[in-house]
């Protein structure tokens, strides 16, 4: 058994051990275990690429890093978030499901078998469904059901794709299928197109995205952060791997462009801030899908940079939203005023995360989007590029207008005593995309 195998296996095991740690009497043992998982994910870089039972290359590694990091942040955040609030399913079951949710995402990313990747994606739905319903309101129950039924129906459709790939290639081992460099056939075209609709349901591709705003807006904030920051990217990763078998670039790029346009239009009339951030996730996922579909030096790297920065930025946005919701009880943008005075730390985090998720320079998302646009330009996809530039700008204005209105408009309530862990984590998560952007600039200058 190689060291690499053990490390990959550990990344899946540690979330479960972290749950066991939460049952023990040792304070913060669960957080320490989750932190060590981030360290292991970082250390795994030394062993990539690896292929065998698991398949991990640089792309996979970035996703693993995202999942382990956001799990750690959400785990710590949820302790403070639920301190004054009863968890309907109980704290222990919540922790167990959170661990299973994380493990199933890591399993989907790391396993070297397309069929089992599908199983992992389905397992993410099972493990996360009750997490979404933690607050047990009428609306959250409806959102949970929509999530279960729409995503499951979509992912079930994706299984046709798996069967057709197996029929065409005779194997489901990802590394073998990719190494075959199979000649595209109508069967494979159909398989990949079905995957776009099937897995696209979970990624947030228009028009099969309808569960996304409901689930994100009704889930408790640490779970919204997991959904937006890592669940959708995990589904995107599986879709990307299937796309690699038979790249249908035109279909994928156009589907993603239409989805960005739709997300941008939906963003224009949102009245609830969590729903607004949900549509922003849809926009970012589809921008990343364009980058992955174009591939190459700029497209792939741009998509990874965008996804990594977005995962932290969006976690920051939802953590800030969680604090705001707790202290104001308001879900609508128009009901919140003058946050700058009442919640200075949280409002700073909200503002910064809003800049991060809309691709403001010098956040990492800006450079990711720039590289994706450049890759579109380099392959002469001018029509798609022009449409994207216009609608990404529209989305930028929608999100930042609403957020700045919440932060600076009006007098606001009297200053509240913010929870230091919740506001601190929101600020930290929002600052990481900025750090990623700065590191990218420094490295680019050094490379010159």
């Amino acid at each position, binding site marked *: 058994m190689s060291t690499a195998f053990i490390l990959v296996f550990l990344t899946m095991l540690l979330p479960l051990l972290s749950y066991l740690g939460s049952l023990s009497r040792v304070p913060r043992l669960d957080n320490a275990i989750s932190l060590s998982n981030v360290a292991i994910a970082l250390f795994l870089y030394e062993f990539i690429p690896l292929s065998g039972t698991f398949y991990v290359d640089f792309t996979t590694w970035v996703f693993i890093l995202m999942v382990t990091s956001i799990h750690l942040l959400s785990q710590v955040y949820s302790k403070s978030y639920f301190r004054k609030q009863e968890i309907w399913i109980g704290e222990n079951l919540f922790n167990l499901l959170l661990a299973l949710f994380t493990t199933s995402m890591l399993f989907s990313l790391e396993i070297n078998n397309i069929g089992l990747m599908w199983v992992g994606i389905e397992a993410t739905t*099972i493990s996360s469904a*009750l997490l979404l319903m933690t607050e*047990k309101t009428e*609306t959250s129950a*409806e959102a949970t*059901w*929509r999530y*279960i039924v729409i995503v499951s129906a979509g992912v079930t459709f994706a299984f046709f794709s798996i*069967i057709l790939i*197996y029929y065409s290639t005779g194997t489901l081992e990802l590394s073998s299928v990719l190494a075959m460099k199979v000649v595209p056939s109508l069967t494979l075209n159909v398989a990949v197109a079905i995957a776009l609709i099937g897995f696209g349901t979970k990624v947030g591709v228009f028009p099969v995205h309808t569960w996304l705003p409901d689930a994100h807006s009704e889930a408790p904030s640490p779970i919204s952060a997991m959904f937006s920051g890592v669940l959708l990217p995990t589904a995107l990763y599986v879709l990307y791997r299937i796309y690699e078998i038979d790249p249908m670039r035109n279909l994928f790029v156009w589907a993603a462009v239409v989805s960005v346009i739709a997300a941008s239009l939906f963003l224009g009339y949102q009245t609830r801030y969590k729903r607004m951030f949900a549509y922003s996730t849809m926009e970012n996922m589809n921008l990343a899908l364009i980058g992955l579909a174009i591939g190459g030096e700029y497209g792939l790297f741009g998509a990874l940079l965008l996804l990594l920065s977005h995962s932290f930025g969006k976690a920051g946005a939802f953590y800030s939203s969680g604090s705001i919701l707790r202290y104001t009880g308001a879900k609508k943008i128009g009901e919140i005023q003058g946050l700058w005075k009442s919640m200075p730390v949280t409002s700073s985090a909200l503002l910064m995360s809003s800049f991060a998720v809309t691709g403001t320079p010098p956040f990492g998302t800006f450079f990711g989007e720039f590289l994706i646009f450049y890759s579109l330009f380099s392959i002469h996809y001018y029509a798609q590029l022009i449409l994207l530039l216009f609608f990404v700008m529209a989305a930028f204005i929608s999100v930042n207008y609403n957020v700045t209105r919440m932060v600076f408009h009006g007098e606001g309530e009297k200053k509240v005593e913010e929870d230091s862990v919740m506001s601190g984590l929101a600020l930290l998560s929002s600052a990481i995309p900025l750090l990623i952007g700065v590191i990218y600039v420094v490295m680019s200058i050094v490379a010159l």
Partner: protein
Amino acid sequence: MSAFGEVLLLPLSSLILITAFYMQGQEFIRPMIRGQLVQSILLAAISLIMGFITGDYDFIILAVLIVVLRGFLITYFLERGIRKDQSHLHERQVSVAYLFIISLVFVLTAVLIVYSVVFSGIRTESITGNRGILVFPLALFFQGLFLIASRRTTYAQIMGYIEEENAIVLFAVFLLPIPLLIEASVFLDVLALVVISSVVVVEKFTHERVEELRG
């Protein structure tokens, strides 16, 4: 056995479709659950026959898995959710006869389009030797989809989802059986999803428009 078995596949597949339309036509929940049970057992019978035709033991194990996990355990969890005093559970606001006609039209149109546009062009000579047999899983899939879309109760929508899953299994059985480990994992996933859904049923029995979830 194999010639006789092949002769049996078409009527059994037809019966599966009939159970699907039967479920669509039911106003009450309990007969729908029973319809799902019969459908799963028919699916297991097809897998068993395929096992005898091809000599592949995986089909036989698959048949056992279908009977145990899908036939009995899922039926048990669904029935357990219905309390004794609610045996009459049904959807009062749905015109079942109207939906039944719509579903027939939808399924026939969808299968005709998908099969002629997509599957007629690709190499789909299935292991049964009859490529036209793939029409049955496709029709079952679309019927499951329609059941989800047309009904408002959680139970009916779970049934639609299970029907979709049955369609996938039937598709794989007819085209090319996928490795048993994956098939078993899929079954367990579906079982777990039904268990989770049965929790949601308690909280949310019907699904209407919610103002907060608009837009």
